[in-house]
């Protein structure tokens, strides 16, 4: 029997006056489980534990959490990647209000996503079949459209922690650039005008926490650099 010590962030606003850490012993039977599997084993011990999960294969983005200090998706993070000295500490995504245990309120995150208008804007009459793109133009969207909005990046960003109401955050900015870079989108100028204030884009200090944690291997810092280049080209 191989025992893993799991330290869990617990908070139930109906009964607890403050959050606390609770210790669990989990028998992994020597297997290199995913962190999500360990949570299932903990839930067998305490049915009151709350966390989000859905597809359990890194596609839906529901189970973003902080594992031994680093954000990631519990379902595709093996214990061998995160466990140090036989101990696993799980906390909710930092910087967002906790609803219960590992479940956070994603409201601010979605508000910033909504703000960048994440949809194609094109007022010319649609052609009979579809709006075509050259293969080169299509290639510009690679590394941008794959985001699953798990919020691992934005909640590891100190700039987003301090100003989540004003700074769009890495996830939102990656999507902002996805539409700025789209050859079919006609709202480029309006989109750029909405981003030139001191907070929305420029609160990024380029520390690249977002790149370090993205479970899909995307690079929001690079996209933010591209937005800066477009803003500069548009305004000089």
């Amino acid at each position, binding site marked *: 029997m191989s025992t893993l010590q799991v330290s869990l962030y617990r908070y139930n606003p109906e009964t607890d006056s403050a959050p606390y850490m609770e210790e669990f012993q989990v028998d992994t039977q020597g297997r290199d489980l995913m962190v999500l599997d360990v949570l299932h084993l903990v839930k067998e011990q305490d049915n009151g534990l709350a966390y989000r999960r859905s597809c359990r294969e890194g596609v839906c983005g529901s189970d973003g959490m902080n594992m031994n200090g680093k954000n990631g998706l519990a379902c595709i993070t093996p214990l061998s990647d995160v466990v140090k000295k036989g101990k696993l500490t799980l906390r909710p995504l930092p910087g967002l209000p906790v609803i219960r245990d590992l479940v956070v309120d994603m409201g601010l995150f979605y508000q910033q996503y909504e703000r960048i208008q994440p949809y194609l804007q094109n007022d010319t009459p649609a052609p009979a079949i579809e709006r075509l793109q050259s293969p080169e133009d299509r290639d510009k969207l690679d590394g941008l459209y794959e985001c699953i909005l798990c919020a691992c990046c934005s909640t590891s960003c100190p700039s987003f922690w301090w100003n989540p109401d004003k700074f769009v955050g890495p996830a939102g900015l990656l999507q902002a650039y996805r539409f700025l870079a789209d050859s079919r989108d006609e709202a480029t100028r309006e989109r750029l005008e909405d981003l030139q204030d*001191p907070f*929305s884009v420029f*609160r990024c200090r380029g520390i690249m926490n977002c790149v370090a944690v993205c479970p899909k291997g995307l690079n929001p810092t690079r996209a933010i650099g591209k937005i800066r280049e477009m803003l500069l080209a548009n*305004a000089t």
Partner: protein
Amino acid sequence: MVTNITNFGRSGLSDWLVQRVSAVILALYTLFIVGYLLVHPGLDYATWSGLFGQTWMRIFSLLAFVSLSAHAWVGLWTVTTDYLKPTGIRVAVQTVIILAIFVFLVWGIQVLWGA
């Protein structure tokens, strides 16, 4: 768009550009001063005063002072908006910072031009 009235350039883009250009100017000025001190080990007042008496050095120094003022304004404004959440305290600190930068700038110009 998020609006702001106490930052340096009214726009994040201009603040960002000012921050980078002023950083380059300050780096060049620092390298020059350090280099000058290294090649003049027994520096006396006449040499030092003669350096600052030349027009190009006055232009370079004034450029560095203005860059330092802008750089400090942009940087400290950012720090206050990150860490000071109550509006009254933040506006008060920002005002003190901007006034202090103004005082130091005029004082610096006076040192440069005065003697």
